[in-house]
């Protein structure tokens, strides 16, 4: 029993990353009809927003500290970040410590801007081209973004720790009335899962309860008619692209403490996210989220020792296997809408 709960928990954090990326992909596909292979790169850019912010925050100047001596007896030079000067020592350190959550505020405008520029500058010209062309040009864009990041940040993983308060694990088993010590789970993963749920809820609420969202949904259903009603649907879709980019970026920001970012992390997630979108059903937002979580949990169950002993290697292939089975038995995916990408 505790094993099962532990595996479900393990699956949820990875699954929620899949779900967030797949949500963005589906938003773009549902609104603009574009298959965006650069979405993994947006996830990666989000992660590097967190890296950038933590670097900006730790920009320092050197002061000579008379109270401390180095081994030669000279006064020690200490690096003092500027934030310490501005906000005082304690607040400054706290800001640096909380750089990853703070990056959310930093990443939202940056990612929306990147998304809007990408849509207006490149994707806009590809609406009428075949899907293969869209895949290929965004694939090229992903390579370019990746290489730019590699040029500025290097090829190595950059550790970006979570705030002190969330480092370490807590006893999840005791919380739900099981034996203490049976389920130990890192804090940050729970934070990530909650964050993902909030973000997904926010996107859905935005689409469901605002006029803007209503127009976008109408546009998804019938773009032409909405256009004929005198609404500038293209501009709204551009904004949706920005939002999708921001969702992917935030997924990346919060994922940095779990997996230190490097320049090709986006590609690794992208392949799986596409599988997730297809399993969930092209163009279905709830499907993308359901499929993301289900596949994440499936993957973590397949990595259990007992399972690997019976079926060696299953943990590596279970997602793809599930995708193949679903595509062949339910061609529209789990919750695919009728008439979307049926060819």
């Amino acid at each position, binding site marked *: 029993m505790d094993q099962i709960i532990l595996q479900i928990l393990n699956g949820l954090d990875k699954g929620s990353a899949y779900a967030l990326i797949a949500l963005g992909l589906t938003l773009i596909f549902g609104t603009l009809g574009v298959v965006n292979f650069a979405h993994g790169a947006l996830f990666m850019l989000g992660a590097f927003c967190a890296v950038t912010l933590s670097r900006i925050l730790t920009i320092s100047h050197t002061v000579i500290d008379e109270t401390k001596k180095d081994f030669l007896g000279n006064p020690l030079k200490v690096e003092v970040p500027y934030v310490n000067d501005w906000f005082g020592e304690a607040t400054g350190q706290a800001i640096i410590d909380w750089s990853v959550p703070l990056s959310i505020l930093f990443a939202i405008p940056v990612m929306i801007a990147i998304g809007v520029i990408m849509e207006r500058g490149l994707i806009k010209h590809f609406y009428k081209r075949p899907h293969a062309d869209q895949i290929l040009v965004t694939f090229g864009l992903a390579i370019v973004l990746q290489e730019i990041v590699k040029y500025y940040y290097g090829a190595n993983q950059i550790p970006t720790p979570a705030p002190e308060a969330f480092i370490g694990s807590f006893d999840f088993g005791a919380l739900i009335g099981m034996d203490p010590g049976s389920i130990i789970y890192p804090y940050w993963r729970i934070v990530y899962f909650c964050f993902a749920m909030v973000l997904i809820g926010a996107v859905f609420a935005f689409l469901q309860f605002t006029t803007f969202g209503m127009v976008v949904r109408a546009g998804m259903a019938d773009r032409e008619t909405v256009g004929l009603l005198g609404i500038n649907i293209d501009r709204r879709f551009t904004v949706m692209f920005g939002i999708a980019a921001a969702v992917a970026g935030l997924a990346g920001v919060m994922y940095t403490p779990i997996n230190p970012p490097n320049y090709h992390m986006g590609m690794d997630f992208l392949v799986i996210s596409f599988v997730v979108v297809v399993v969930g059903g092209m163009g279905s937002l709830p499907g993308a989220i359901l499929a993301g979580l289900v596949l994440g949990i499936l993957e973590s169950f397949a990595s259990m020792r007992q399972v690997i002993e019976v079926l060696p290697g299953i943990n590596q*292939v279970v997602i793809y296997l599930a995708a193949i089975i679903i595509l062949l038995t339910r061609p529209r995916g789990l919750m695919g809408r009728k008439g979307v*990408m049926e060819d």
Partner: protein
Amino acid sequence: MLGLSKKDTSLLIAVAVLVALAPVLLNPFPENSALAQFNAGYPDLMQRFVIFGIFAIGFNILFGLTGYLSFGHAAFLGAGSYAGVWMLKLLTINVIPAILISTVVAGLFAILIGYISLRRSGIYFSILTLAFAQMSFALAASVLTPITGGETGLQTALNDPRILDGVNDSGNIPAPNLFGLEMGDSLQVNVAGWLWTFNAGYYVAGIIMLIAFYVAIRIFRSPFGIMLRAIKSNQQRLNYTGLNTRPYMLACFVISGMYAGLAGGLMVAMDPLAGAERMQWTASGEVVLMTILGGVGTLIGPVLGAGLIKYFENIFSKINSNLLHKWFSFLPDGLEDFVVTIIYPFIGKGWHLTLGLMFMGVIIFLPGGLVELGQRISRSFSKNKNDAAEQKPAE
């Protein structure tokens, strides 16, 4: 000739001449000159040109003719490589069985994957092939280690049985050969500072590439090829006329997979080592890049694209900042640094950036790739001539 039209025959002959003279043509700079590092006429790189040429020709038969974008073609290359190494290990060090078996094994593998993947089309087909390739890669790197050598890769060893070769008592691992002609053997000719290397392995691969190219031309021009083009332009209409397109698609997919397997077999024939990374989806992406860059659906395009990308990979990635400084040393100091800073991110380790930009440029502005570029240039020339001709009578 050989059942080809005049135009195709001259194309084939042109390619044959280029392949035959490549060691000379690709070494335009004398050995000790400053530009010698732009020479591409060394065996290893030339072998890669033709082998990836075969791979891209095969991919183009699928993508160019039918429009089905496979993102998992590297799986067949990898399967072919493994089969090839096993032949070199178990049967004989002669490369012929290795190349044949790797083609056959890749073909069988393609039947299996194609039978399932071709139930869907469009993006779903891309995802399915991608999923299969990633599965093969993950399995090859982990569970199938006894067969594939896992992450270290599979290679020939001293104590392999090699039942056709008899006892090996030389104490060395035998090198792959073609009836005694070792693939690594080269004839070096030094003419007035130019060094030309005529490599046996390159010519073996080159001849096979020409055969593959010839077969591809025949496929493009055959009724079968026309049927595949019909699938690309409107599959639904074909279905409505009572034709079952699936056998055609499967045949095309298998042929394309066999080309990839042939390339994999040649790869291990040149260097008997196969690793799982050959199956990774980035490798599949690479062949897509080659085909698009050269020109989808054209005969010569994929070969050009393969050559261009491999050239970039090997030559551009070697340029470093010292060299750049040397080249631009004629500029004033400040300007020199500026120019080097601008160019540096695009070369050396950053050549992927150039590749990505080039690729995007091609898709945006030149969907037909390099071949279209050539056509446009030649058309603009001939247009000028026509204009001139039209103007004459007016005078």
